[in-house]
């Protein structure tokens, strides 16, 4: 009956190890990629008493996007406020988020920032344990008197990306690649689609999410991003917008390989600057910037001034919390239309949905 037998224990063990290796590649292997540059952080030249702790979510530093934007804010606090800073990343499966916050609080860091909405529960718990420490959470509302929520109007910024893409598209066909099908990333899609359709009602938009909700691999899988974007370019799309963290690199590679006239739109950071490869910089039409760096820096600065939490700061278009990057001058010819849409959103004339 049992045709396939692994007779010797050693052979079985070896097979198991191989399978483990396979699953580790696909699974929670995150965080390994930036081993070389993670060590550089830490003991900065501290001349004030300000000690700022920051905890990343899975994926962590080096994504040239969301997390690196938060890191840029931390570095600005280090330079301008002379703060001592410390950034930590969780284990591959993110099971020690609370432990990271506790270690930072225990080591005297104040304020402390949790990056990413998955920290919501842990920040709430740990903030209660340390009522004298100020916490901030990126992408989630405040959950206590010493917690500041930093949220962003991703849908509004994405609307502008949709307007620009619709105006620039020659084929009338766009693409959207989302990392993980969570409500956060659906905000990006909703804004992008609405912006494009409002500009050109008959435009075609392909949407693709790399992994379902709860499976964070989609933010860390450039190969999947590349496959998804390749398909869209082959089907006739000429501009693909991504909200996929590290996986966005694959979208850029696909756009570069698809040939002239194909563009990609970056996300969170000004990716035409943060992505190091010059060939990829050229095909990034614009980026929907989410100023996590400003949010982090402003929070640290106000905490230094003695401000208390308990409120949620929503970084929208009015606060310049989101917007389009202009590096490379690829969208200067449609800038007027983009600015017009921006004014209408700020004035309330255009309501951008946050769900597709």
């Amino acid at each position, binding site marked *: 009956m049992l045709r396939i037998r692994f007779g010797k224990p*050693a052979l079985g*063990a070896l097979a198991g190890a191989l399978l483990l290796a396979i699953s580790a590649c696909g699974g*929670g292997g995150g965080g390994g990629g930036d081993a070389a540059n993670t060590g550089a952080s830490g003991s900065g030249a501290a001349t004030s008493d300000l000690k700022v702790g920051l905890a990343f979510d899975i994926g962590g530093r080096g994504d040239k996007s969301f997390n690196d934007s938060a890191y840029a804010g931390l570095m600005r606090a280090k330079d301008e406020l002379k703060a001592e800073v410390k950034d930590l990343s969780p284990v591959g499966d993110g*099971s*020690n988020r609370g432990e990271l916050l506790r270690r930072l609080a225990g080591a005297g860091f104040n304020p402390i920032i949790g990056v990413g*909405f998955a920290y*919501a529960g842990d920040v709430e718990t740990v903030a209660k344990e340390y009522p004298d420490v100020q916490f901030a959470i990126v992408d989630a509302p405040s959950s206590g008197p010493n917690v500041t929520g930093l949220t962003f109007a991703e849908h509004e910024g994405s609307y502008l990306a949709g307007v620009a893409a619709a105006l620039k598209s020659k084929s009338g066909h766009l693409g959207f690649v989302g990392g993980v099908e969570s409500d956060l990333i659906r905000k990006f899609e909703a804004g992008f689609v609405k912006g494009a359709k409002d500009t050109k009602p008959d435009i075609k938009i392909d949407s693709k999410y790399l992994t379902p909700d709860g499976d964070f691999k989609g933010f860390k899988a450039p190969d999947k991003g590349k496959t998804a974007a390749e398909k869209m370019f082959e089907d006739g799309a000429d501009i693909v917008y991504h909200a996929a963290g590290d996986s966005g690199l694959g979208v850029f590679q696909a756009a570069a390989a698809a040939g002239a006239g194909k563009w990609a739109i970056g996300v969170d950071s000004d990716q035409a600057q943060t992505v190091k490869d010059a060939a990829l910089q050229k095909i990034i039409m614009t980026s929907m910037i989410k100023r996590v760096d400003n949010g982090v820096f402003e929070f640290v600065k106000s905490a230094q001034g003695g401000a208390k939490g308990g409120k949620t700061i929503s970084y929208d278009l009015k606060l310049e919390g989101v917007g389009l990057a202009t590096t490379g001058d690829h969208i200067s010819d449609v800038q007027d239309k983009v600015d017009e849409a921006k004014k209408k959103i700020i004035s309330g004339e255009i309501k951008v949905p946050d769900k597709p």
Partner: protein
Amino acid sequence: MIGAALRRTLITAAGVVVAVLIAFAVSSIAIRVAGADPFAAIAAMFDFGVRPIDQVDSVTYWINRSVALFIAGLAVAVGFRMNLFNIGVEGQYRMAALVSAFVGGQVLLPAPIHLTVIIVVAMAAGGLYALVPALLKVYRGVNEVISTIMLNFVAIGLAAYLVRGPFSGRREAGRLATATPELPPSGHFPDANFLITMFGLPAPRGAGLYGFIGVALVAGLVIWLLLERTRFGFEVKASGMNSDAAVASGVDPRRMVISAMVLSGMVAGLIGLPEIMGRNHNYGTSFTAGLGFLGIAVALLGRNKPVGIALAALLFGFLDRAGTPLQFDGIPPAVVEIIQGTIVLMVVIVNEVTRRIVLRWEERRAAARLGEVPAGAAA
């Protein structure tokens, strides 16, 4: 005979120690390349914090992490014992965690019954999800490695759909994380903080020491009894070592595949419960995924024996915890992943080497015996 068994155990234990030491040596190179001092890194791993409360928190995290890893290792080991590669522990424990968290959030019962209901539902869900690849293997000859890997993807997708659809709970405005309805207090597993406070130490913060550690130990004991002291366990082992011989001696291979797979799935159902019943009180975005895959490494390292798995889980838990103090000293946390990977590889190699040593040694002993007997008969 007792002497021989003892000697074999000693060689095995020595092999594991050697494997761990070699792994640390290999990792030292990686640490050096990353620009840090290997000795400082190893010292940092033992940094549990300065104040007693920090130390208690660190140890609690270590043990809590090990509890989940131990159960995951047990689940995988049950299949491994009869050469059934249940790679689907990942999917089984996610489905079980989701379903039991949802069911637990729907009912209001006295605490002991409520806790039992959640545990039973989780084991049933895990077992049922493991039944699918078992039936496929028995009746259609589908290799369980393929089917369980595929069913993992199904489980992840299904869980993502259910938690945001039919099983989703109430969400506070602006919160982007999705989760099942919160368990009522009667469904919260009491913590085991008394194990720490009775030594005059402060109680750990956060969720505390998982009380589920008791359930995990009972599960380990039951699995040990089942595998080592019952006919079922003997048949499992016999099927694993030589299925043809097992069939010839009257073991029904279909029944064995189904029961071992379902048992593995039932144990897998427990993996997520310490977290759900003891900390999060729901299944949602921050649920720890990937323990099913780590369980493969833990089972391999623990040589599929409950005591070995417990030690392996403690080692992996220790290394996972060490990632945080390493980062405080500016050493990349990827070092931990390198050490874990090297340990597993080394154990596989050392396993083979010790197996050969034991085999050769037993051959020599048998040859010596054979040499003695005719000599004695002639005299």
